[in-house]
C-alpha cells in the first residue's frame, strides 16, 4: 500500500516536472516588458532586477535558476504588475481563502442534497418522482454555470433584492472573510456553483444505487428478514458509496482551484480571478505560478481519488498484482 502511494506520488512529481518545464519554456519565450505606466527610472530598475536574476540568459539556464529558487528558497518568481515585487507565492496564498470559502460552502451545501436526491430517485425508480428528478438533473447538468449565475443575480438581486450583486469587499465585511455580511454576500455564487454539483452528484448516486439495489446480496439481505430500509441503508448504500466518496474527496481538493467564470461574475478576489488578471496584465511569473498550482491540484485530486478507493473499499488491494 505504502509502496503504491509512493509510486503514485513519484509519478505525479515526474508529470508535474514535465508540465512545469513545458509551461516554463512557453511562458519565458514570450517577450517580457516592464509594466506600462511606470516611469522610466522604475522601468530601468525593473530591467536591472531582471538582468540580475538572469532573465536574459538562455532558457535552460533560466530554468535552472528558477528550479534552484523553488527548491532552496521556495521562490516561485515575483509579481511585476499586479502587486509590484511581491513574491508570486504570497500573492497566490493571499487569494486562496475567498476561493476556498466559496467553494467549500457550496460543496457542503451540494453534497448532502445531491446524495439525498440521488437516493430518493433510486428508491422511487421509474416512478414519477424519479422521472422528475431525472429531467431536472439533465437540465441542471447541461446548463452552464454562468447561466445560473445570471439567473441568481437577476432574481435574487434585481427582482427581490435579497443579496448584493457581487460579494462584499473585505473592508465592508469588517475585515474578515468569516463575518456574516461576507457570508450573506457569498450566497449567490454558492448557489450558482451548487446547482450543477447537486445535479451531477444526484445522477451519480442514482446510477450507483440502482445498480446495487438490484444485486444479489440485496436479495439475500431481504430473505434474511431485513426490512427494505434496513437493507438499503446497511447494504446497498454502503456499496454505492464506494465510487461516490472518492469523487467527493477529489472535488474537495478541486475547491482550491475555484471557478474562473463564477469568480469573474461575482468579483470574488480569488485564485481564478488572479489567473485571468495575470494573463491580462501580462504578469508572467504569476501566470507561471498559477499554471503550476492548477496542474498540481489536478494531479493531486487524481491521486487522492485513486488512493481513497483503497481505504474505502476493503475489496480493493492497492498495487497488488
Amino acid at each position, binding site marked *: 500500500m505504502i509502496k503504491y502511494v509512493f509510486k503514485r506520488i513519484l*509519478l505525479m512529481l515526474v*508529470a*508535474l516536472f*514535465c*508540465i512545469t518545464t*513545458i*509551461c516554463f519554456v*512557453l*511562458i519565458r*519565450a*514570450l517577450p517580457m516588458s516592464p509594466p506600462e505606466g511606470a516611469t522610466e527610472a522604475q522601468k530601468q530598475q525593473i530591467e536591472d532586477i531582471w538582468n540580475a536574476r538572469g532573465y536574459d540568459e538562455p532558457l535552460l539556464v533560466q530554468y535552472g535558476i528558477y528550479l534552484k529558487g523553488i527548491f532552496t528558497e521556495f521562490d516561485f518568481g515575483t509579481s511585476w504588475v499586479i502587486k509590484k515585487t511581491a513574491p508570486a507565492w504570497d500573492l497566490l496564498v493571499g487569494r486562496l481563502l475567498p476561493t476556498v470559502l466559496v467553494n467549500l460552502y457550496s460543496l457542503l451545501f451540494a453534497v448532502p442534497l445531491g446524495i439525498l436526491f440521488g437516493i430518493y430517485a433510486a428508491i422511487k425508480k421509474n416512478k414519477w418522482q424519479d422521472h422528475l428528478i431525472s429531467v431536472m438533473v*439533465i*437540465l441542471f*447538468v*447541461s*446548463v*452552464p454555470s*454562468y*447561466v445560473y449565475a*445570471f439567473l441568481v*443575480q*437577476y432574481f435574487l*438581486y*434585481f427582482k427581490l433584492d435579497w443579496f448584493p450583486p457581487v460579494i462584499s469587499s473585505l473592508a465592508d465585511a469588517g475585515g474578515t472573510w468569516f463575518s456574516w455580511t461576507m457570508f450573506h454576500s457569498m450566497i449567490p455564487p454558492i448557489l450558482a456553483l451548487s446547482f450543477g454539483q447537486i445535479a451531477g452528484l444526484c445522477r451519480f448516486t442514482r446510477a450507483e444505487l440502482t445498480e446495487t439495489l438490484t444485486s444479489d446480496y440485496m436479495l439475500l439481505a431481504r430473505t434474511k428478514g431485513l426490512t427494505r430500509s434496513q437493507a438499503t441503508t446497511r447494504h446497498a448504500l454502503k456499496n454505492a458509496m464506494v465510487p461516490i466518496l472518492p469523487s467527493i474527496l477529489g472535488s474537495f481538493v478541486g475547491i482550491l482551484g475555484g471557478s*474562473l*467564470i463564477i469568480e*469573474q*461574475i461575482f468579483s470574488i478576489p480569488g485564485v481564478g480571478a488572479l*489567473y*485571468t488578471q495575470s*494573463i*491580462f496584465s501580462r504578469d508572467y511569473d504569476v*501566470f507561471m505560478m*498559477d*499554471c503550476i498550482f*492548477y*496542474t498540481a491540484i*489536478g*494531479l493531486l485530486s*487524481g491521486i487522492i481519488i485513486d488512493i481513497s478507493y483503497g481505504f474505502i473499499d476493503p475489496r480493493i488491494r492497492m498495487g497488488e498484482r
Partner: protein
Amino acid sequence: MAKEININSIPKEKLALANLGDHIKDQKFDDKPIGYFKDAWRRFCKNKASIVAAIIILLIVVFAVVMPFFDSGTGTEFDTYYAKKTPRNLLLSNIGIATGDVNKDYNERAYILEIAKGIAATVNFENMPSIGEALAQDNPLQPVTNLEKVVQTEQGKNVNNIYYANVDEYLSVGFIYKQVSQEEYAKIVAWQEETGIQVLYPLINTKEYCYSATDANWWYKTDEKGNPLYTNKSGKVKKIEFENVDEVVLEDNYLRYTSGENKGELRYWKYQGGGNTVETAEYQVRVLYYNYYRYTHDGAEPEFLFGTDVSGYDLAQRIAMGLRLSLLFSVCIFAINFILGAMYGAIEGYYGGAPDLIMEFVVYVLSGVPFIVVSTLFQIHLAAKVGAIPSLIFAFVLTGWIGTAGLVRTQFYRFKNQEYVMAARTLGAKDSRIIWKHIFPNTLGTIITSSVLAIPGVIFSESMLTYLGIVNLNSKTSTSLGTVLAQAEGTWTEKPHVMLFPALFISLLMICFNLFGNGLRDAFNPSLRGTEE
C-alpha cells in the same frame, strides 16, 4: 349464442390440412438480419427524448446556417441608435409578442416630449392636435402606444403626475441631426417622393425657446426648463396653462426662411461647410430616425426578432454567428478527437506492453495539463500567427482525445484475445487488418458516444474562454456566444433580452447534445437491450 365445436366430428368439407405431401424444410428468413448498428438505431428511435433532442439540434443548425441569408446588414453593421432594443417583429406583434414595446414611466415634461415625437412625425403642420387627441389618433409613428395609468405623488406643495406608458422603443428614438452630402440629400428627397415616406423634417430654431440645441426632439417652443410655451394673440410667448396634460396644444419652433423668395417657408437643411461645389457641400438635416432607417434599408422597417445587442447589432444574427462558431468547433473537435483517439487507443490497446506503458505515461502527463492553461498558452503564442480559431482548436485537440483513447484502449484489451481474432491471426491477417477490420468496429459505438458527449464540454469551454476574454473571437463578421454574453453584462438587468436569448440558446444546445449523447449511449449498449420493455 356460443356454438360448441365438436372436434371429433368436424365435417369433411371444412377440414383442410395445412401442409400435405411437401417436406417442410428450413426456410430462409424473409427479412434482413439485424446487425449491431441497425439494432442500435432501432433502440435509439425508441428513445423519444433523444429524438426530440436530435430534432432540436437540427433546428438550431438550420437556424445558424439559414440566418445569414436573411441578413440585410444588421448582423455585420451596428446601429448605435438602435442598441439594446427589445424584440420587434411586425408579424408577431399582431399576437402581442415582439412588439418592440417597453414599459416606461415619465414625468409630465418627458411625457409631453415623448408624444410630441409622434405628433411631429406626421407631416401635418397645420391644426396641431392636442396631446390627448394625438394619443387617440391611429398614428403608426406615435411612440406611446398605450397609457396605462397616471399616478399622483405629492411632494410638499407640488403634485407630480407620473405617467406609466407602453412605448415603442424604436419610435422613441425620435429625431436626430445628421450631416449628409448634397448628393445624399438629393437621393433622400427622391426616395421620399417615390415612397411617400417622410424622412427629412424641418430644422429647429435653436436660438430661442429651444430646450436643447443638440437633441433634435425639442421641436416645440419651450422655456429653459422644457415646459411648452405658446404665442398669444398679441404676439407674446407665454407658458401654457393647463389643467390636464391632454389639453396641451404644442406650438412648433421650426426654422423658417427669414428672407428671400421663400420667406416664411420651413427650412429642411442648413449648409455645414465642405466647399460650395455640389459634390462636396455638406448639409445638416433633421431626420426621423425610424424613417431614415427605412431609407437605408430599402424601405424595410426595423425588425429584430430577438432585439438588438449592446453595440446595436441584430441579436438574432449575432446568436446565429455564435452558434455557427460553436457548432463548427464541435464538429471539428468531434472529428479530430475521433480519429486521434481511435488511432492512439488502438495502438496502445493492441500492442500492450512497453508501448502501452510509455503511451499511457504520455497520456498521464498530457491529461495533467489544465485545459485553461493550454488554451491560454496557445492563444498567446499562436493566435497572432494562425488566427484565434485554429489556435483554440489546437488547444482542444491537445487533450481532448484522451478520453476517447482510453475507451478504445480498454475495448481493444477486451477483444484482442478473443477467438475470432486468434482465428484471423492464424489465417495470416496482418496487424493493421486485425486492428481496423476486426476489432475497431466493435469499439465504434463507444467512440461515437463519448465523442458526442464531449461536445457540450467543448461548447461550454469555448463560451467560457470567450466570456472571460482570454480568447477573442469577436469581429464584425463573427462572434461567439460567450462574447455576446460578456457584452450583455452591466445592462442586462434592465434589458434582460440581451442576456436571455444567448443564454437560452447555449443552454438549449448543451441540453440537447447531452440528451442526444445519452440516447446514443443507451442505444449502443447491448447490455441494456430489453430492459425498457
